[in-house]
């Protein structure tokens, strides 16, 4: 019997759908040009032509929030994809080949895991530069070792199973066995990890942009909008409230959805199932 979808998953799903839709719409249309400066409409309060007001350059806050949603979503997706591909490949190769390859790869991996994630990302940012793609690579590399650990562990247990042996016995080349029979079994644990990572990346990207180490202005992101709102915090409250609310609601959506995914996979956590 199918259980009805619980309220938290529903709210989470709605919030994430809203984020994705807003991001998609912003790619083709925003009410105003998010970069258009209008000095006569500086710091206009919400209402009229500017539903959420304007910033210190007279730029439309709503349009900038929408464009920021697109940037955040793209950066988060690209980072998660990068980490899953890089970490996944590393884990697959290490777990499948074992021996010295495994030992060397995992030594490097463990060295990276010995750092707090955000610290490692900051270190990589120094190397790759503080910009949109620098963030993707830095956050992706900071998270890839966790993916590699999980994938390697799964591969080590899967490679001993009968169907993997069967694939070898019928004469499949090793890479076919790896990609067709071993790799697909890693999808479930990686999916859980990736959901959590999406939230972490979204938060980290906003934090780095807030620090000025992320997507550089004038391109709008929620983080850098929040940073530039600080001098006007008292006179133009909407400038500081709107971007933070966007980050918080997106994270709430991801957390609620993530809890639901985990509850489904781990029935012990479900309330009185």
């Amino acid at each position: 019997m199918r259980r009805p979808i619980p309220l938290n998953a529903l709210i989470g799903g709605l919030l994430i759908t809203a984020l994705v839709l807003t991001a998609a719409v912003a790619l083709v249309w925003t009410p105003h040009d998010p970069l258009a400066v209008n000095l006569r409409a500086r710091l206009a309060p919400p209402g009229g032509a500017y539903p959420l007001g304007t910033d210190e350059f007279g730029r439309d806050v709503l349009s900038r929030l929408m464009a920021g949603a697109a940037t955040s979503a793209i950066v988060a997706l690209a980072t998660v994809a990068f980490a899953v591909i890089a970490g996944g490949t590393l884990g697959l190769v290490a777990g499948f080949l074992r021996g010295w390859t495994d030992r060397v790869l995992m030594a490097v991996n463990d060295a990276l895991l010995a750092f707090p994630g955000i610290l490692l990302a900051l270190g990589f940012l120094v190397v790759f530069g503080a910009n949109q793609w620098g963030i993707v690579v830095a956050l992706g590399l900071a998270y890839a070792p966790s993916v590699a650990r999980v994938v390697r562990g799964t591969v080590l247990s899967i490679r001993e199973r009968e169907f993997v042996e069967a694939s070898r016995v019928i004469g499949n080349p090793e890479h076919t066995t790896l990609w067709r029979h071993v790799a697909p079994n890693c999808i479930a644990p990686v999916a859980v990890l990736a959901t959590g990572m999406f939230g972490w990346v979204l938060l980290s990207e906003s934090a780095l942009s807030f620090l000025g180490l992320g997507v550089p202005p004038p391109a709008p992101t929620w983080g850098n909008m929040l940073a530039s709102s600080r001098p006007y915090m008292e006179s133009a409250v909407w400038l500081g409230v709107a971007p933070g609310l966007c980050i918080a609601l997106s994270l709430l959506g991801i957390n609620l959805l993530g809890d639901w995914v985990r509850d489904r996979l781990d029935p012990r956590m479900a309330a009185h199932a």
Partner: protein
Amino acid sequence: MVVPTLLLVGATVFVLMRLVPGDPVLVMLGDTAGEAEIADLRAALGLDRPLPVQFALWLARVARGDLGASITNGQSVLGLILERFQVSTAIVLVAVAAAALIAVPLGLLAAWRQGSAADLAIVAGATVLVSVPSFWLGLLLLLLFGLKLGWLPVVGFVPFSENFAAALSFLILPIVTLIMIEIGVLTRMSRAAAIEVLRLDYVTHARAKGLPESRVLLRHVLPNAFAPTWTLIGLTLGNLLGGIAVLETVFTLPGLGRLLVDGIFARDYPVVQGCLLFIALIYVVVNLIVDLMYPLFDPRVTAE
């Protein structure tokens, strides 16, 4: 285990700093340097030697606590770090300890009455708190208590040694912000752990013996349920030292995270390298201490 980990951490930072685009010698000397001057400094820093030799020399210097001098102001990097470290540690330690004291009982209560209205309220509250970015919450609190109500100072910092009360007034808002965020994280963790423990046979057994519920919870459930939370606290402490830069920015505090971020902006590589090494070292050591303290509340884990 700690020494190899620290060697790997050192090697990672060394490689990372060598990967940074641009010649560190040119950065240190500026554009006006002559050829001879560049060659001299390169030799003095040992940059003309093979990479493994460079690493060994570098490691020997770092092990002696010589992290070099800041390019920007010539101060000793270790001195700068130790000075900034105090502010960050004060905030992080107080906030995480206070958050744990509030969150662990809340998580236990929610797990004990799983599915009740109290549980739902606690879970909902915790989930909202983990979703709020710390820097935004900090800005909102600053707006309310600093600007609108005028109860607390908005910008600046006074060292503890100068005026203890004033220093404290600057730290209240950042600490409160961090407590709220960490309550969310720790409540969710302790609730999840307590739910698992509550289902174990030995808890049923303890209840069947006729023990009062309070004794079951405090003596039988809490110690086991606290173990994963304890590990998380260790990870959190280390993570926060790097991650607190955003809060230090919001509250303009001279902390360690801010030192690192300012170093990145100024391309002050000795400072960046020193901060990376120092925070990673603290992270490894804190987690070691956390592991060593495990047997205190979980006798199944014995210290070797």
